[in-house]
């Protein structure tokens, strides 16, 4: 692909601006960055507006902006499950997470595993929750790099070989440096710039493409029938309907359990801020839904058959559909803005994810098992170093492991993280469950879920046979049901034999 100089210049300018903001952010609402909750939670004092940008920038990642339209582009209507998924996450956020905020604020918990440790007094269960969060997030960070790689490649920079990897290395060194020095304040401030760029880009696409095509009618008319709707289920099966519904519901249950989501929630200044945001964050869902349709716009414009994009599709397959559409529709300078939005959109979640996993490792592995007497300074220092290691790991992963593995691990990550629902979410409401019963429930869901995904050739939906009908179900959701069943049965036994309710360090009033 030819080098797109105009786009590249705009891109570099915006990237430089964001770098400056990242380093400057450490001085914003100044706190003692040698304390873990200051570095890793921004001092828990983000109000409604900052939290909106932070969680929005955190959940709606660069990878989302590339992959969701790419899924519609490639697979059609099933890819739209991202919309019902994001409709269902906000009732969860409103009802459940202010409770988690409240108990964590009361006891100074920084991670969900901190809460589990306090609630169940079981360090091994807490370790399981912590490690699940870390391994589920790692491939997610790696995928953020994919989004960045695609737009860098689209601007005409060769992205293979050592010199091809260089732009990505530079971007990540910058990211690592400002995360290290400013902590969570950096992505919070950068998220404001990122989101404005993203909104501008999406609305430009949503207006420009239908105008170009003469309305949405001709655009949808150009979509093949098979892609426009879900396939009607065959007799004796729920077919694509249950696949669509369980993918949406399972993803919704899993989302706020990821360490980076929890970090976003806990950094807000009150439960009320979390509730307000449950009503305000759907603005991002609307944008995501509109952006998903960009995948159809790419079909309608016919980017796949344009000769100038052939190398891009060869290198990045369907993930190239969004960049290709932007290049086909917009002047070069605006392509620079759009691509910068996507690349910066990768930095924000990557920073928050690395901070969240660093918090988790430091609190629930290092302080719990390795150095229980560490000082506050040692604790925050460890977290800063781990955040560097995690980013380096993601970079190595992207360079040396085929992309397909990152996608598979990301799918497995969803199956894994949902197994923490009984300990963290149900644990907010009841102490019926025994700590060890939750551990074995987690083990069953994690182990059998992983095995099923492998057995299913890495497809997320497994055709369950229930009473003679076929019910294609998202594996994560089916394994959550298994997990809860195991934990319930074992709790009845364990509570009778070795009750552990006295280990609970929280009180009913903490959950206000």
């Amino acid at each position, binding site marked *: 692909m030819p080098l797109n100089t105009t786009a590249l210049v705009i891109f570099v300018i915006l990237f430089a601006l964001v770098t400056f903001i990242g380093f400057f952010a450490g001085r914003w609402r100044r706190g003692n960055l040698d304390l873990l909750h200051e570095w890793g939670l921004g001092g828990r004092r983000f109000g409604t507006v900052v939290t909106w940008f932070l969680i929005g920038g955190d959940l709606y990642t660069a990878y989302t902006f590339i992959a969701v339209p790419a899924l519609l582009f490639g697979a059609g209507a099933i890819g*739209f499950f991202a919309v019902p998924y994001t*409709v269902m996450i906000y009732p969860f956020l*409103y009802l459940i997470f202010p409770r988690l905020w409240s108990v964590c604020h009361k006891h100074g918990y920084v991670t969900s595993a901190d809460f589990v440790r306090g609630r169940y007094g079981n360090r091994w269960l807490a370790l399981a929750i912590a490690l699940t969060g870390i391994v589920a997030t790692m491939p997610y960070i790696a995928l953020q790099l994919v989004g960045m790689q695609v737009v860098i490649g689209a601007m005409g920079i060769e992205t293979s070989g050592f010199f091809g990897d260089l732009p990505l290395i530079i971007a990540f060194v910058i990211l690592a440096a400002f995360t290290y020095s400013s902590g969570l304040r950096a992505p919070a401030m950068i998220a404001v710039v990122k989101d404005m760029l993203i909104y501008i880009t999406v609305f430009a696409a949503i207006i420009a493409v239908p105008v170009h095509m003469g309305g949405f009618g001709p655009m*949808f008319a150009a979509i093949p029938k098979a892609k*426009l709707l879900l396939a009607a289920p065959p007799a004796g099966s729920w077919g694509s*309907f249950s696949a669509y519904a369980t993918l949406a*519901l399972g993803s919704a249950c899993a989302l706020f359990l990821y360490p980076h989501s929890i970090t976003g929630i806990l950094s807000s200044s009150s439960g009320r801020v979390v509730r307000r945001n*449950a009503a*305000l964050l759907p603005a991002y869902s609307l944008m995501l839904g509109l952006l998903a349709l960009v995948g159809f716009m790419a079909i309608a414009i016919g980017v796949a058959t344009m000769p100038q994009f052939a190398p891009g599709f060869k290198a990045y397959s369907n993930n190239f559909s969004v960049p290709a559409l932007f290049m086909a529709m917009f002047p070069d300078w605006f392509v620079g803005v759009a691509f910068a939005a996507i690349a910066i959109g990768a930095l924000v979640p990557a920073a928050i994810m690395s901070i969240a996993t660093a918090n988790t490792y430091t609190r629930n592995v290092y302080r719990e098992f390795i150095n229980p007497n560490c000082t506050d300074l040692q604790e925050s220092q460890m977290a800063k170093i781990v955040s560097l290691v995690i980013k380096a790991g993601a970079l190595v992963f992207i360079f040396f492991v085929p992309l397909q593995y990152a996608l598979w691990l990301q799918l497995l990550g969803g199956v894994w993280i949902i197994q923490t629902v009984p300990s963290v979410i149900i644990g907010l409401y009841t102490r019926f469950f025994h700590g060890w019963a939750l551990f074995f429930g987690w083990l069953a869901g994690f182990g059998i879920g992983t095995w099923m995904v492998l057995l299913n050739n890495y497809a997320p939906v497994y055709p369950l046979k229930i009473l003679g009908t076929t019910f294609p179900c998202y594996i994560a959701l089916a394994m959550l049901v298994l997990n809860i069943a195991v934990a319930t049965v074992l709790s009845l036994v364990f509570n009778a034999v070795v009750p552990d309710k006295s280990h609970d360090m929280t009180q009913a009033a903490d959950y*206000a």
Partner: protein
Amino acid sequence: MSDHDNEHRPVRRVLWARLLLLLPFIAMLWVSSYNSVEPMVAGIPFFYWYQLLWVLIGAALIAFVYAVER
């Protein structure tokens, strides 16, 4: 009461209002109710505009529950 106290006052949970938050789940999980092209609006098939509309309805319901519980 200072603003800070107001922010940290425990929420007054109103059950009937909270039950409204079941509606987005019912609507979105009932896939067969919206897997159709007609009725189209402005050339957009039902399947797409209906689900996008639920993003707005969902947000409005949450805002309503928030207002009731304040």
